[in-house]
């Protein structure tokens, strides 16, 4: 990477390095404000956060927020990124001109060891003592001159959450930039992967420096101890966690509803306006049925994503996430999942898209992939319209045992089937496919901190923006392709059957018919399932179109009732149950597959997901249909 010569006078590049939970992201947000960009590093599923700011002397500085690590000895893809960028060997990434090691001033020991390791890289290095105000408040006295002299590295105190808290850092960056412009190049890189003995040696050195430069707190943090006594209590802690989760689930499910209805109404109005303003034709169909319906079906999830990430970031900033993982580790571990997997999986009950995005809280790649792969098995809200339609058309509305409604029981059974199959698939993946690589559960439980509002807003905003950009491009493309398949070729003049019947999707439906006959699907179901790929609930509207009840795009109450009657007459109970079983497993959501492609940065994982879910769906439907048929429900 030596080919890219840094042009220091114009845009020095700095990289933020530090332990996890050291307030590195808060400092990054304080430095860059809204001038930041979130994307993925080329070729890996690691989030790349870059921003820029201007120093008091008017220098424009590029800053890169690297994943947190305890050592340059990388153990996860995230830490590999940190190592490779720091060492200047990351493909397509310019070498940083200055490394800023960010430290939590109240917890210096491990970060000083990292500083000693970073020094070996030979690149200009600066230690930022973040949360300096909290340290001072606790009576921790840090002799900055001494610390700097012992480490051989400039040290500046910072307070990321306060307005002028980064002034010293900015001033220092200006000085360093001037020095760098004059100097030839960085010193020799003598870093190599430390052995256990070298790690011990740097620990001893860090201890020695702390003894010399830091006075222990006079007012230690007792809040963390007190809170942990309750929050990590084996029984009370789990109950509190379940309450928090229930509250989150409720919030994502119900608070988002008005906003989602509003967005949906907005897009419907837009489509109606275009339908009125443009002459009929394929371009209008593309815009309304493809683009607007497609974009609308994605953006409608934005409120859920905003609410979900508000909760996740609050819990993360507060320091609760590692505690929750601690409490859930044994339970999730039974299925071979990591303790942190439960938040993404819970979110997937609302929608697998935010759920899959939330898997970023899992550091280990395999744990994360296993979670991503089972997330769509959780019963998402888009399945509810389909479940409701079929259950109310086929399951008699009566009570069982005097208390439970039979329809409710069937609904519960479908949810349970989703959860059980997710645990089973995760178990198979982690215990049979990726055997022998059980990742250790080893994480710091940071001190609790009051979340910072600015940080929260920035975090949610960058997630929302990334969602719209990432999901928008890929998923929109897929929606356009599905629209194309469902609309071309158009119906011949004087056709009596619905137009979709003549389209490629219709033809595919007819071709696939022999394949799905064993699971009891008729061709109408098959054809409806194809546009249902756009979003699961679209299958309901598509069934309406195929059975020619309700007009184009009609999804009103009376249409659904009419459709229920039609289905009740033309399907057998076995077919209906088979379709329900299908919907538990089937990869009926192009958006989810698109997000998986974005998140894993490969086509391999969405294809594997599609394959295994399709297989499960077919087997489940086959079994359901034949058992139901043998019971005489055909």
């Amino acid at each position, binding site marked *: 990477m030596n080919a890219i010569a840094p042009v220091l006078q114009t845009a020095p590049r700095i990289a933020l390095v530090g332990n996890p939970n050291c307030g590195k992201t808060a400092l990054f947000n304080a430095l860059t404000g809204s001038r930041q960009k979130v994307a993925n590093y080329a070729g890996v599923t690691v989030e790349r956060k870059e921003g820029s700011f201007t120093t008091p002397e008017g220098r424009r500085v590029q800053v890169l927020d690297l994943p947190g690590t*305890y050592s340059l000895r990388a153990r996860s893809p995230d830490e590999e990124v940190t190592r490779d960028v720091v060492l200047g060997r990351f493909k397509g990434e310019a070498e940083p001109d200055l490394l800023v090691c960010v430290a939590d001033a109240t917890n210096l020991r*491990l970060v000083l060891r990292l500083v000693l390791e970073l020094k070996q890289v030979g690149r200009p290095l600066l230690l930022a003592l973040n949360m300096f105000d909290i340290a001072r408040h606790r009576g921790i006295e840090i002799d900055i001159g001494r610390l700097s002299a012992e480490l051989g590295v400039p040290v500046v105190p910072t307070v990321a959450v306060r307005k002028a808290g980064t002034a010293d850092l900015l001033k220092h960056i200006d000085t360093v930039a001037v020095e760098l412009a004059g100097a030839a190049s960085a010193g020799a890189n003598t870093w190599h992967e430390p052995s*256990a003995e070298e*790690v011990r040696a740097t620990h001893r050195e860090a*201890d020695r420096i702390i003894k010399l430069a830091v006075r222990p707190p006079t007012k230690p943090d007792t809040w*963390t101890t007190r809170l942990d006594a309750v929050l990590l209590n*084996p029984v009370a802690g789990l109950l509190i966690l379940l309450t928090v989760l229930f509250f989150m689930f409720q919030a994502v499910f119900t608070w988002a509803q008005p906003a989602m209805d509003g967005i949906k109404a907005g897009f419907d109005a837009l489509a109606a306006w275009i339908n009125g303003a443009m002459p009929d034709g394929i371009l209008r169909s593309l815009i309304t049925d493809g683009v607007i319906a497609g974009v609308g079906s994605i953006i409608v999830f934005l409120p859920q994503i905003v609410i979900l990430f508000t909760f996740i970031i609050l819990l993360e900033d507060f320091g609760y996430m590692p505690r929750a993982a601690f409490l859930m580790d*044994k339970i999730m571990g039974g299925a071979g999942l990591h303790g942190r997997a439960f938040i993404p999986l819970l979110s997937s009950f609302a929608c697998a898209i935010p759920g899959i995005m939330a898997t970023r809280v899992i550091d280990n790649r395999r744990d994360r992939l296993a979670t991503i792969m089972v997330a769509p098995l959780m019963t998402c809200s888009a399945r509810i319209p389909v479940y409701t339609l079929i259950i109310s058309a086929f399951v008699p509305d009566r009570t069982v045992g005097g208390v439970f409604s039979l329809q409710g029981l069937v609904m519960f059974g479908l949810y349970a089937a989703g959860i059980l199959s997710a645990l089973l698939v995760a178990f198979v993946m982690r215990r049979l496919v990726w055997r022998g690589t059980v990742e250790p559960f*080893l994480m710091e439980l940071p001190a609790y901190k009051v979340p910072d509002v600015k940080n929260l807003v920035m975090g949610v905003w960058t997630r929302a923006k990334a969602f719209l950009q990432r999901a928008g491009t890929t998923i929109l493309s897929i929606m356009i392709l599905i629209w194309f398949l469902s609309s071309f070729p158009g119906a011949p003049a004087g056709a009596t059957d619905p137009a979709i019947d003549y389209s490629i999707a219709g033809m595919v439906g007819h071709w696939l018919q022999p394949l799905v006959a064993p699971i009891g699907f008729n061709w109408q179901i098959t054809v409806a399932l194809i546009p249902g790929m756009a979003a699961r609930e679209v299958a309901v509207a598509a069934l309406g179109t195929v059975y020619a009840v309700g007009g184009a795009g009609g999804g009103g109450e009376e249409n659904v009732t009419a459709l229920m009657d039609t289905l009740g007459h033309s399907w057998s109970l076995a077919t209906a149950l088979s379709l329900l079983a299908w919907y538990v497993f089937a990869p009926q959501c192009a958006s989810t597959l698109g997000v998986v492609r974005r998140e894993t940065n490969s086509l391999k994982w969405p294809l594997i997901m599609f394959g295994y879910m399709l297989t499960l769906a077919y087997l489940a439907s086959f079994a359901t249909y034949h058992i139901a048929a043998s019971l005489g429900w055909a």
Partner: protein
Amino acid sequence: MHLSSRPAVSDAPAPDQDALPAPALTADARPLSRAAKGEVGRVIRVGLDGAPHDSLDPDELERRLLEIGFVEGARVEILHEGLFGRDPIAVKVDDMRVALRRREAEAILITAWQQPDASGATPRAVAEDRRS
């Protein structure tokens, strides 16, 4: 959050800093994985001395434990235990808190904690004397 409650090394610089620590097996030495809630101990050995471990390469496990603060001489205290099988455990390591499974805690050998000035020598110095 305490800083530097651990006795410092400068009191007794070890002459052979790169030598493998000899397993300082005293009578009450036992793995952290068998410690109960409330127990306080001192780490006397990190790593399995090459013995196989069922989750990670033993050398890798040793380095990870070291990097997160489990280092010879550190004071450890079991703060909390999980509900099922009393696993995982939350441990106070010097001035920070770490969560880990008992399976990984097997690789950490501890003895009962004594006050640093109990015998005139600091526990760290004792650990290092044994090493030489």
